[in-house]
């Protein structure tokens, strides 16, 4: 009786909060889907206003044993073809009922007396199915207990209601049998029950078999790194375990290998990740290296990655791994009003994985400003800084945290930020300037004289040595020029034999003679320097010999030249000329040979 009174009081409070509107649920159809380890409840509520006031919100009550596991709650009004998602928020009534958590659904327009509206309320619960027995062997299949109320628990009175529980398999150990219970194959039907007062409940239990993978990620960290060079790199770090009945009695490989059905029916071997289309550079690894058991398919609309953990996952077994992939930037990044907008999915790409704690870290390029993130459901947000390749101040990171995440949260969220595209060039410029300074410092090191004492003997000797080398180089180049002139003279002789132009040949000889004289004049001071230099003691005799040989060759060549020209003027025969210059020729070639050898010898020093 006291309870009744209490309840009335509460009702009164609620009713007064919505100005004398009195809502009843004229029809409730609930469907509970137990086919996976996420419990999905879809309720169709027909709400009717009986009171005089205008009702703007509808209350939902969730019993506390379920409230902590509530992952997702949403309500939709179906109006014709379009459906409107309604706003839901946490509600604390004036008279507290600690065994319930309340949510209020705000209707789009007030509900006046006598009017009714049909809502679809969808909720998802995690960790609500409990394995019983808690420990099973490898061969056993997994049995699951689910507890709920046969009546829709609501702060409003319910006129007619039904409940349908969908099961994954036909094997049911037990279920609570009350009035109007029907069991057919893979589903149990309760109801209809009529005219139940607010907060009425009737506990029911279902005990059934479920061998679907119970993959639970204790923690998932998704890192989404944006590079304005055209890539979005997604890295996901999973810490996964099998949330079903614990494995006992060890693991026998031979049973697992040869009799798969009875040797590991409750385990799962692989997971399927549905990645966005055009995902590339996919990898799958863990702390100790690459995991080679994965398969990737893809077409223009999707990319599917099937990953196998290193070992089959039995109840209670844990694993951890990382998958990463790159996505084309233009699929996810948009620009509006000078701001960039990243639009990408929030949750994990895998089927039926429950995530206890999810961190989504969006790493923006260095130098991003005015960062804000918007998500379709409440999350905890803060910012961090991450240092990556060639960063100076670090990259801003937006962190979004959410607990109890189910696949229904796999919605798009947005991050807005400002980024100047010129900053893109900063890192290449840094690299270029780094190499530039490296080379400059090399050049400086090679060119700049870094000796401490400028008067020490060794330093002086080094200077002298360099000077001497330069002199030898000059002398060499002069000799080379002389040799070039010799070649020219030879060429003029050949021309003569071809054209018979004696005058030109003579003029060539004259010019060559003048040039050779000039060169020997240039050579003289150099030879003097070398002779006096103490460093050149080794090289001096060679250079001297070279100069002497060169002079001798000059003379011989001139002699030969004049002989040829003379005999040509005298019109002597070719044979005759050849005989006359033969001795010269022999000598010249011998000299030339010696000079070449000397030049080589000097070069080697």
């Amino acid at each position, binding site marked *: 009786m006291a309870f009744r009174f209490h309840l009335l009081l509460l009702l009164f409070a609620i009713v007064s909060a919505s100005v004398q509107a009195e809502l009843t649920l004229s029809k409730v159809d609930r469907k509970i889907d137990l086919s996976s380890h996420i419990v999905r409840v879809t309720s169709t509520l027909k709400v009717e206003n009986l009171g005089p006031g205008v009702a703007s919100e509808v209350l939902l009550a969730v019993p506390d044993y379920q409230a902590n596991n509530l992952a997702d709650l949403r309500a939709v009004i179906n109006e014709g073809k379009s459906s409107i998602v309604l706003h839901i928020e946490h509600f604390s009534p004036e008279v507290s009922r600690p065994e319930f958590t309340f949510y209020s659904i705000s209707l789009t327009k007030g509900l006046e007396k006598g009017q009714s509206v049909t809502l679809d309320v969808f909720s998802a619960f995690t960790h609500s199915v409990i394995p019983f027995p808690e420990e099973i062997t490898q061969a056993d299949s997994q049995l699951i207990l689910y507890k709920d109320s046969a009546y829709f628990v609501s702060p409003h009175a319910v006129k007619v209601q039904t409940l349908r529980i969908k099961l994954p398999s036909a094997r049911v150990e037990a279920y609570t049998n009350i009035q109007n219970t029907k069991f057919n194959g893979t589903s149990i039907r309760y109801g209809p029950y009529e005219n139940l007062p607010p907060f009425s409940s009737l506990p029911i239990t279902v005990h059934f078999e479920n061998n679907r993978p119970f993959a639970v990620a204790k923690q998932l960290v998704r890192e989404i790194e944006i590079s304005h060079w055209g890539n979005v790199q997604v890295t996901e770090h999973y810490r996964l375990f099998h949330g079903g009945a614990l494995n006992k009695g*060890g*693991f026998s*490989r031979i049973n697992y290998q040869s009799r798969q059905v009875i040797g590991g029916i409750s385990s799962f071997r692989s997971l399927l990740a549905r990645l966005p289309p055009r995902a590339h550079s996919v990898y799958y690894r863990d702390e100790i*290296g*690459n995991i080679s058991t994965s398969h990737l398919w893809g077409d223009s609309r999707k990319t599917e990655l099937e990953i196998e953990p290193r070992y089959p996952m039995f109840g209670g077994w*844990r694993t951890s791994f990382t998958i990463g992939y790159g996505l084309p930037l233009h699929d996810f990044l948009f620009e509006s009003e000078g701001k960039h907008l990243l639009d990408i999915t929030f949750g994990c790409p895998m089927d039926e994985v429950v995530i206890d704690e999810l961190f989504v870290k969006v790493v923006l390029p260095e130098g991003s400003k005015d960062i804000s993130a918007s998500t379709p459901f409440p999350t905890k947000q803060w910012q961090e800084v991450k240092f990556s*390749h*060639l960063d100076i101040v670090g990259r801003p990171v937006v962190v979004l945290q959410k607990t109890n995440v189910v696949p229904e949260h796999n919605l798009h969220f947005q991050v807005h930020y400002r980024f100047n595209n010129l900053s893109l060039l900063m890192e290449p410029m840094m690299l270029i300037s780094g190499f530039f300074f490296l080379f400059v410092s090399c050049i400086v090191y090679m060119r700049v004289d870094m000796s401490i004492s400028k008067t020490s003997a060794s330093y002086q000797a080094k200077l002298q040595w360099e000077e001497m080398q330069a002199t030898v180089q000059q002398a060499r180049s002069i000799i080379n020029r002389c040799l070039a002139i010799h070649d020219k003279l030879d060429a003029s002789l050949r021309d003569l034999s071809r054209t018979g132009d004696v005058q030109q040949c003579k003029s060539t000889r004259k010019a060559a003679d003048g040039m050779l004289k000039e060169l020997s004049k240039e050579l003289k001071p150099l030879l003097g320097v070398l002779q006096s230099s103490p460093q050149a003691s080794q090289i001096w005799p060679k250079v001297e010999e070279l100069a002497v040989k060169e002079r001798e060759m000059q003379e011989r060549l001139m002699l030969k030249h004049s002989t040829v020209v003379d005999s040509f003027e005298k019109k002597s025969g070719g044979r005759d000329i050849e005989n006359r210059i033969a001795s010269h020729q022999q000598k010249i*070639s011998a000299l030339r040979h010696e000079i070449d050898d000397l030049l080589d010898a000097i*070069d080697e020093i």
Partner: protein
Amino acid sequence: MAATSAMDSLSSAATSAVKSLKLRTKQQELLIRVSTLCLIYVLAFSIRLFSVLRYESMIHEFDPYFNYRTTVYLSENGFYEFWNWFDSESWYPLGRIIGGTLYPGLMVTAHLLHRAISAIRFAVHIREVCVLTAPFFASNTAVVAYLFGKEVWDTGAGLVAAALIAVCPGYISRSVAGSYDNEGVAIFALLLTFYLFVKAVNTGSLSWALASAFSYFYMVSAWGGYVFIINLVPLYVLVLLVTGRYSMRLYVAYNCMYVLGCLLAMQIRFVGFQHVQSGEHMAAMEVRNLNDGEVDSYVAQLNDLQAAVVWQGIMIVVWKPKLRDAVSVRSFYEWWRRRRSRLLIIGQNSKEVFYFLDYVKHLLNDPKLFNDFLRITVTCAVSVGALAIGVGTASGYISPWTGRFYSLLDPTYAKDHIPIIASVSEHQPTAWSSFMFDFHILLFLFPAGLYFCFKRLSDATIFIVMYGLTSMYFAGVMVRLILVAAPAMCLISAIAVSATLKNLTSLLRSKSKVQAVSSSKGTSSTKASMKASLDQSLPFQRNGAITLLLGAFYLLSRYAIHCTWVTSEAYSSPSIVLAARGAYGGRVIFDDYREAYFWLRQNTAPDAKIMSWWDYGYQITAMGNRTVIVDNNTWNNTHIATVGRAMASYEDEAYEIIQSLDVDYVLVVFGGVTGYSSDDINKFLWMVRIGGGVFPVIKEPDYLVNGEYRVDKGAAPKMLNCLMYKLSYYRFGELTTEYGQPPGYDRARGVEIGNKNVKLEHLEEAFTTSNWIVRIYKSSATF
């Protein structure tokens, strides 16, 4: 016409551009040399990346996992924590003082590299740094080989040496990417020390000697092979003394390098006073004393002390009291006081010897006679020294040599006395085939190089000859010392190649020059006569030279091909991941080790103790992150013998040992399904031997039938029921491994197993990997 003139102007512009770019011969040579060296640098790095391309960027084999684990610890906790690290995850329940029982050079190097890379803002994981440390140092070794070759012979020999060592399989075997082991950096340090020492001997410069000492310090910090240096260098000095090549340069180089090197080496905790007390180092001490005698030993010894005190002071100021375990001044003084009398006596003696020698030299007044005299004296001194060492060893003052060192001098020693050393395959004597495999043509070029070295004898070539000959001996004794011989082989072969090629090309060049000259001459008759005369003087020279050159290039290209093949086929397997050819020619990967280690890491209690044979200890601690009973450090023979005994006993007895060691899981490696031959059953006899060495209850003959080791029906009853057999073959009898064979057919040994009905009483199968390579059993005490 216009077109031709345009062509003319164009061609003249082109030629002028070429002319402006035209470099002097010297510059050309420099350009070619530097670019060749750069290419060699890149080649040495990239040839070692086969393993990364074939498999992945991962750490290989056994010891590298320990090095990797310690490097990670160092980078996470800093140097002091690393230095004072007591590791309770290995050698349960004894634990291991990591800081005092390892050579920290490798870890510190990788850590510093990682820090440097992070400092210039490259976010690279420490694992990548560790994987690429060995190739990076291999490239550096090639550069050092160039410098060394240049110092010993000429730049050509240096370049050839760099090219040879860059791809030498003997070196690649220990320095592929992922083989993160001490040897990776130690060969670089070894060669650098030798190079700097030879440089110091050639120049007599104190600074080179100092650099050599520091390089030696680095070597000591990186690898136990420093013993080779500290024995080879004195031996070299002794040889120079005996051959009368002793000089002031040598004196400066050796004394500076030895004294400082010794003091620096003592800073490494794992080495400590061993460096001056253990028998392996005595040769150096004696030669130094002898050597000192020739100038003034007393002063030098005092200088030692001063240097030591100053050094210790620096160490203490710099490292502060945090480093309590480091060698302190006080302990140094205690040591000094103990040894002073001995040193002083030697010092005084040698001083007198010196004056005496001087006097004798003066008396004899003939260098030849004096040299003979010196030779005799030195020989006497050496024998006296040997006697002193003998007495010292007998009286226990000088610690005896370690087993590994004994087995170097007597290859059969380990086999008879220390099974734990003999059980390691890399400690076996080397087969001829592996010499051929690892050196290829170097094996033939080596004697040729020795010939060239003897032809042009100098201090440097004597060094390289001694290095080559001693390291060849050691390479013959132990497989893994092929590594030490590789640089010497490459250098000496490079001398042979370079000298031969140089001779041949100089023949070709002189010939072609004569031809060029004669052809430029124009008139035909003289040209012909000249050519004829030249040809007569050197018949077939040109053709012969060309043939020989082509032959040399053919040989060298065969070498390059062989090296690439060996690297890709033999030395690039991480041995964690096994690869095999499948039935249809595809590559099949067996990743069972990591499967098992990751299972341990994820699904056992964090303080679980794993018992396995010691080979897998490092991998279990590094990848499985669990405590092990024994690991590859093998410092406690008894502990390993206990594990061996457990594996060799019946299950009840083994279970008592397992309980007494607090073991939760037992891990065995089994290749019967895949045909993987280096599994625990094949190693089992070593377990028996090592176990039996400490616990006489384990007798090897109990496991053999007529001296034959077998696992089939004819096996010994004890074999069929010992723990190792049971764990390996548990429920294996139900499995058909090969078509057409009965169930329980062991593919690794090719027999049907003898005991198919294995029942375990105290242990329970906890996990078996997908190819059965690793099997893990849970002790029932932890149920």
